[in-house]
Structure formats: C-alpha cells, structure tokens
C-alpha cells in the first residue's frame, strides 16, 4: 500500500493559496501543477486566467499568466496559441465564465477546433460573487439569486457541456470530479491527456471538473464532496466522452 516515491507539493506551487477551506479550485490547481511538473513543461506553459475565484491560482503558482476580461478565454487562447504555437496555452475557467458570459468565445474556439485546452471548474454557481445562479445550477438547487431554487419555468434549463460539445470535431472532452483519491487520479489522467492532445496538435480539448463550493453551498467540505457524489455525478455523463 505504501507509495515508493515521495509525495510533496510540486515545485510550481510557490506559496499557500487564497481559496476557502475545502475549495475544489485549490485541489485542481495542485493536480495541474503536478502534471505540468511531471511533463516538464512549466517553462512552455502560459495560462489564460478567467475572472472569478479561479483566477487566484496566479498567486500561488509560478507560471506565466494572461488575464483577459471575464469569460473571454476562448478568444484570448486562440490568439495566444497562434502567435506562439510552441507554447501550451490553457485556461482554468469557471462555469460562469466558460458557459455563460464567455459561451460564445468558448464555443467558437471549440467549433474552430483551436489547439488549446480548457479546464472548467463546475461548482454549479458563481462562487466569488456569492453563489448566484449559473448555467450549471441544477433544477431545484438553491442559489443566492434563486432563493426558491432553480425551476425550469422561472429560470430555464441547466447547461450541460457534454450535450453541447458531444458532436463537435474536437480532440478531447472529459468530465471528472475530485471527490476521492481515485477520482482525483482520473482527473489527473484527463488533465495530462488534454495537454498531450495539445502537444500533438490534435485540436481543442476540454475537461470539466465537478468541484465543491462549500462556502456558497452552505455545507462542510466533507458534506460538499458527498453532495457531488450523490447529487451531481448521477445527473451527468462522466468520464472520457471524446478521445481522438
């Protein structure tokens, strides 16, 4: 059972992060940091930051960053990759940034099959502004702007990136979560695979990660992980959906 190699923070994680206790972003950032370190591509990586809780990776990770307006990562990554095709150009996005205000840019980058990578943290709400309705907020779920819970009549149906992107000619589409060590391993494999697709010039890759927002869900971090396992995972198609 014991691991042979030491497990410690990858060198890219330069200091403590600024996220809330039990936040999914901080776990994902470390996973990404491990992959960038293991692939030895930190010096060749430029991360396009979204605006929202997710942007706080830039305070704790020693990596180059470009931060355009909220949600415009699809456009910015397109330009970044085309002017420096030898760099890995990726974003750590929020579901609000990638699927609401930036849906046009995200979809346009995907339909053009730009050789860039999206990691979208789906926590079913706008975390930084206080847990308002996001496209991904589930039917029946409370949010601070839908105090009676989301209903189809009042707020419309929720957004599922897999349903939207399933038939696109893109290189990689996966949905994972981080609720347990084994799920984290799957996420790490998906992160690596997405970046390998970019390395090999295969085209657009997107990994959606179901992450907890204990603060805005009003749950303890442990309960928030259980909520993902019991409430979100059963509603979603999980795993690798496109792998070309």
């Amino acid at each position, binding site marked *: 059972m014991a691991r042979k190699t030491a497990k*410690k923070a990858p060198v890219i994680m330069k200091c403590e992060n600024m996220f809330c206790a039990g936040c999914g972003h901080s776990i994902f950032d470390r996973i990404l940091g491990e992959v960038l370190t293991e692939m030895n591509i930190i010096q060749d990586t430029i991360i396009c930051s979204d605006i929202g809780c997710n942007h706080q990776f830039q305070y704790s990770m020693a990596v180059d960053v470009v931060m355009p307006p909220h949600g415009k990562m699809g456009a910015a990554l397109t330009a970044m990759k085309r002017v420096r095709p030898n760099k890995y150009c990726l974003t750590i996005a929020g579901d609000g940034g990638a699927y609401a205000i930036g849906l046009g840019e995200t979809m346009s980058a995907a339909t053009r099959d730009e050789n860039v990578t999206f990691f979208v943290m789906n926590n079913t709400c706008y975390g930084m502004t206080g847990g308002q309705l996001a496209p991904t907020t589930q039917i029946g779920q409370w949010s601070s702007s839908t105090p009676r819970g989301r209903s189809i009549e009042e707020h419309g149906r929720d957004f599922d990136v897999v349903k939207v992107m399933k038939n696109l000619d893109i290189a990689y589409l996966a949905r994972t979560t981080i609720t347990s060590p084994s799920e984290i391993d799957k996420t790490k494999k998906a992160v690596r695979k997405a970046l390998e697709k970019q390395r090999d010039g295969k085209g657009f890759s997107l990994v959606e990660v179901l992450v907890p927002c204990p603060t805005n869900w009003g749950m303890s971090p442990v309960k928030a992980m259980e909520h993902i396992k019991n409430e979100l995972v059963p509603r979603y198609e999980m795993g690798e959906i496109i792998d070309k």
Partner: protein
Amino acid sequence: MEKVKLNVERCKGCYLCIENCKIGAITMSSYTNRNGVVTIQVDQNKCVQCGNCYTMCPDLVFEIL
C-alpha cells in the same frame, strides 16, 4: 519513524484528510494555528503512507516522506 511531514500552519480545517484516511491515522489535534483553525495530527505509527491525505488536501499540508 516519521512517515509524513506536516505543515499545519497551512491547514484551513476542511478535514478532507480525516475523511479519506482509511486507517484512521489522522485525527483532530488540540492545536489552533495562526489562521484560527483547529488543525489535525497524524499517528505516525499507524500511517501506511498511502498518500490519500496529500491527494485530498487542498492546502499542501502533507508531505509523504
């Protein structure tokens, strides 16, 4: 023998480590860190170095030696 090194000053008190330590080597400690968080402790004798605590910890508290 020390099997896992801790930096409990980073702990924010999510306790995902306790939840995911399958052999129960991690428990609450009586120490409150500078963040005002009641932190955790590891029974080094019980620890099997599975790495689950490192993997689940959002705050890089653990280093498996």
